């Protein structure tokens, strides 16, 4: 008998930290992107994915809206826009 001791990464889904966003979320313009991958590198969550130019995207389930990707993009292709709250959508 062991109790709760170890966790395998494949069994861990993580917290839905996207719910932390209240004010802003990143918006990828997909216009001037040069696929430098800096947004992918700098994201503290690691929720930016992509390979080709103008094809990078954010997993909003996890994005906390910190704004580092928008800050680092050399082409200013990422802007921080108002967060779309559920109540407003309805």
């Amino acid at each position, binding site marked *: *008998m*062991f*109790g*709760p*001791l*170890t*966790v*395998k*990464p494949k069994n861990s889904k993580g917290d839905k930290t996207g719910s932390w966003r209240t004010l802003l979320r990143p918006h990828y313009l997909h216009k001037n992107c040069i696929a430098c991958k800096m947004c992918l590198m700098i994201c503290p969550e690691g929720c930016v994915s992509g390979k080709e130019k103008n094809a990078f995207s954010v997993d909003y389930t996890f994005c906390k809206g910190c704004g580092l990707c928008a800050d680092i993009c050399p082409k200013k292709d990422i802007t921080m826009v108002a967060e779309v709250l559920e109540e407003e959508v309805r």
Partner: protein
Amino acid sequence: MKEFVEGSHAIAEVVKSCQPGVISAYPITPQTHIVEDLAQMVSSGELKSQFVNVESEHSAASVVLGASATGVRVYTATSSQGLFYMQEVVFNIAGMRLPVVMTCANRAISAPINIWNDQQDSISLRDSGWFQIYAEDNQEAVDFHLIAYRLAEDKRVMLPVMVCMDGFILTHGMETVDIPEQDKVNKFLPVYKPLYKLDPADPISLGLLADPDYYMETRFAIQETMRESISYLSEISKEFNNAFGRDYKDLLVEEYQVKDAEKVIVAMGSVCGTIKEVVDEQRAKGKKVGLLRIISYRPFPYARIYEALKDVPKVAVLDKAVSLGAYAPVAVEIKSAFFGKKKGPKVISSFVGGLGGRDITMETIHEVFRRLGAKEVNFDFVDLKPELLKEGTPC
């Protein structure tokens, strides 16, 4: 093979035969000879282990923790201050269910600094979740290390084991010991197969934060495992007897002339050898005395002790440790074995002796039997020197 050797060397030989992958220890009297011998064996190529010379006991325990978590059999040894320094790692190892085996060469605790034997060190770690088995002589010390690995690595157990042997008395005592042969050890002790380990092929996270919703079950699990292990000890003892021809019965206690005894002393460790001498002497004179030797201190064999002593009218517990401000540790657990039960001794007297290596002689044991009378001694020290209590006070 029988050899006339120093206890420490016998331990090094048996540890060598268990072939740990990683050994790490920090020098502290009286453990040093064990570790020096192992270093010699590694350097000569007799023992193919990684020997890590660390900068403290805390790191020694941490090294064996990390190595054990990586799926390798490990070994460390310490004493007294070293055991206390590594205390948080000791609790960590049990909490992570890693089958580490450690020799504790029992030694007194500072302050004042004292390098001689008592059992305060290991007894002070009784809450840790480690098994604690106490050897009476060097043959037991050797055998208990084999049993320790077998017990710790049992898939139903996966808990660390501390083999306790009295410092200097056993570690530096010369005795004839039968060192088990390698091929017999190989049969008795299977290759270590960890339940989980750090391996990029199948990653796990170990040592997570467990908040109030998760923590308590891990402690319950260790408690349950220890409770179940009372029967595993008998199982392993039988296997050991088949392999090596020495019978430790249930590995919980040894009853020495207890059956019809009117007075029994309860004790742990090498002092039991002395007590047996006195018991023999007194029995020859027709006195009905006996010794109940505790072998497994953790898990504490309450039911077994009840069975052994329920019909003995007078019991004296001789502790080599003290919980200052309260009680003697073994005595209080002996008493609790009978609380609320139908039968039990009329008198359970508690004595503390042998602290800081003060020799417990046959005369001391005679004195204990003498003082074990109709009137219970709630708690008392034996062999005190009253003249010292007049000096040394601050002025």
